């Protein structure tokens, strides 16, 4: 597995997200509760690339991001939508290495 550096660790504050381009795909990368998460950045309900701009939180024990458009929640670890069982987002492997944030290419 090769890793692609997308930004400095300091570029993603705790509780915040950024958007990265990985092989032409838009990826939302978050730092929350001390960990990094990466999901498809495109909201499946509206086709708009907005998920990196959602609010992070926990609902019933799951860490989630809320879509800023119609507020559906997605599990940060699995990509599963909490409001609709049939909808799930692609997830990406992400790590912090030597002060850099990297996605699995």
């Amino acid at each position, binding site marked *: 597995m090769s890793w692609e550096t997308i930004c400095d660790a300091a570029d993603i*504050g705790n509780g*915040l997200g950024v958007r990265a381009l990985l092989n032409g795909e838009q990826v939302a990368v978050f730092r929350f509760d001390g960990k990094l998460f990466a999901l498809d950045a495109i909201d499946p309900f*509206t086709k708009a690339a907005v998920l990196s701009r959602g609010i992070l939180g926990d*609902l019933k024990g799951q860490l989630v991001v*809320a879509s*800023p458009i119609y507020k559906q929640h997605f599990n940060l670890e699995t990509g599963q939508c909490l409001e609709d069982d049939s909808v799930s987002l692609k997830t990406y492997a992400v790590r912090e290495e030597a002060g850099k944030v990297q996605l699995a290419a």
Partner: protein
Amino acid sequence: MSKQRIVVVGNGMVGHKFIDNLINHEDADNYDVITFSEEPRLAYDRVQLSAYFSGSTAEDLMLTSEGYYQENGVNYVLNDKVVSLDTSAKKVVTASGREEAYDKLVLATGSYPFVPPIPGKDQEHCLVYRTIEDLEAITASAKESKTGVVVGGGLLGLEAANALKNLGLQTHVVEFAPRLMAVQLDEGGGELLRSKIEALDVQVHTEKNTKEIVAGENARYRMNFADGSFLETDMILFSAGIRPQDELAREFDIKIGERGGIVIDNNCLTSASDVYAIGECALWDGKIFGLVAPGYQMAKVALSHITGGSEQFEGADMSTKLKLLGVDVASVGDAHGRTPGCRNFVYQDTVNEVYKRINVSEDGKTLLGAVMIGDVEAYGTLQQMCVHGMALPENPEALILPAVDGDAAAVGMGVDALPDSAQICSCYEVTKGQISCAVQEGAHTIGDVKAATKAGTGCGGCVALATQVMNAELENLGVEVNTDICEHFAYTRQELHDLIRIGQIRTFEELIEKHGKGHGCDICKPTVSNMLASLWNDYILEGSHAGLQDTNDYFMANMQKNGTYSIVPRIPGGEITPQKLIVLGQVAEKYKLYTKITGGQRIDLFGAQQHELPLIWKELIDAGFETGQAYGKSVRTVKSCVGSTWCRYGVLDSVGMAIRIEERYKGLRAPHKLKFAVSGCTRECAEAQSKDIGVIATETGWSLYVCGNGGMKPRHADLFAGGLDDETLIKYIDRVLMFYIRTGDRLQRTSVWMDNLEGGLDYLKSVVIDDKLNVAEDLENDMQRVVDKFHCEWKATIEDPEKVKRFRTFVNSDANDNTVHFVEERKQIRPATEEEVVKFVDASSEVEPA
């Protein structure tokens, strides 16, 4: 079938009610209606007449309009009194000589003020209190007077005294009987009312029989009393009761009572066939009803009889509850205890100035009547118990004793016992059953109940009782109303606000650590961030605040459906220089933005990608613009009309005031968005009465309206205060807004907030104007702190390169977002539809290989 012709003589509250009921009747098309009024305008709200002195205009008091009558085919003739009646030829003749035939005639001529036959009563500054023209005369007279006397210490007399006091006169009340409100109150109640009113610097003179009015020595007139004493005054206002306006019936042989009043039966029919009488001119069972509710009932009954219905007039409950000169007064049923064998309980508290008495039947089983001064909380329950003859509890005294902890149900005990048919709201005739039904269908707050049933939206007198009915029903349903804001905080927004304010908490982390659990969510984070901002007004992207913001607040722009943003710079009061307009045009052109004028007199620029926001704002700020906070739950705009500076009709400088208000409250974050407007005259071109805060210029100063809104459930704002100078206006707005920020629920607009305040508008007035909670200074200080800390969030952002970095579309590329596509429509961009996007993608993939 030809239409039946109905002639309605008199267009007062009751005459209008009859017509309004007819318009809304299913058989309305079978009737032609014409109404005559001797007054120059259609029906207005005489019950609220005194509001004229606190800033309401004649227009505010109108119950209908000529437009409404025209739309509904109602013919009306103003300034023309019906003077002749021929019941055999079935026609009427007016003062101007107009003849009108009728199939049915409705006399709704009302009453006139009784002026005792005192020598000297017809002089220039001796007036009455009944019509808008009377009020105009009183206002004019007050300008030339220092002192004023109201003759008559009844309900209307005390209202009139309040009016004189508001006009700045040294006010006296002269009453023939030994006590005030002798009809409604017993001796104990009358005494307490007197002492409360005298504490307000209104002198009360009882047992005074005025013999004559002569020239005064130190004032314009001297009133000489039968007991040899006298009183000097510059004006005299007679309010010694009403007499039925029955002259038409009297002259043309319709049966009249011995002491006046047109005799009617249970169908409201008079002695002449096809002639009805309704309202204060009618005499039923030897009684005249001087309240509006029985008049409305008669209007219903008369229409029912005309249209073949079966409703009957069966008398009316004359219980009343009102605020006189700021004193709460209530009277229920047999207030004097004149029923034979009557026994009573009296509660008297001279410290808090409360007097309550209930009269019960000899066997102690039913309530006959009650009197309450100073605390009228129990009115709703007592009035219902009395009307429905409900069984009294074992210890009836509990009904008027103050509730102590754990015994709070004492007063409410009656609610469960009420039958479903019990009328809770008499303005809209809403029964207990209807309220319970609304609760079963999901109305779980008093605001919802009001919206669903209209209960409590008239005079508001029944809100406490309606709330009790709602709570009882919720309990019956086993509904536990969970008011927790979300799973992370077991508190309401108001409680959280108190925790933050009192604990001086500055960050979300500190709050959740001390008072919550978990990490937070998209409900509590923005709510808390909003409260932190409205208390401390720190920069919203600083430190840990950033992650709390909704995307709109984080990017300080409004996200649209395709993930791009719109930008709304502040244009205070809607006033903008040509130079700034040009800049907006240039920026929009340069960044290819769609432009549209907003409802709040600003300009919205659509279609900016996130990385473009700081670039665009740099240009706007250089041109002197500030953030418009259209993205926040915050003060949006203050709309204004052009006002006295330009307009031929303008009374005050509405643009100047709008700018002053917008500059003061700009950016103030609140439970929901806030919209304001200022109109320069009562033509109201700025539509201030549809705003959270509406200001309208009048001849006597600013009128302040509060808690209106447009949107999904439009609601007119309520008149809060009138005749205000600039400083008082600002002070009141400060207090109203901060009180809303402290106590409002999450995403609760001001209208719903006020509907849910127990006591509604009156309560809000008591907090803001009378400072009942002793918080006014605190509220003003809170507001001043926020105002002092105002900063343009966009200016702070573009000055900080680290913050600007956060706007990059991609952290690792300068590419554009390839999900964003625009097409052209009417010479501007718009987001591409899904089908159009598919075409784009196909086209680009075809092109690429080449």
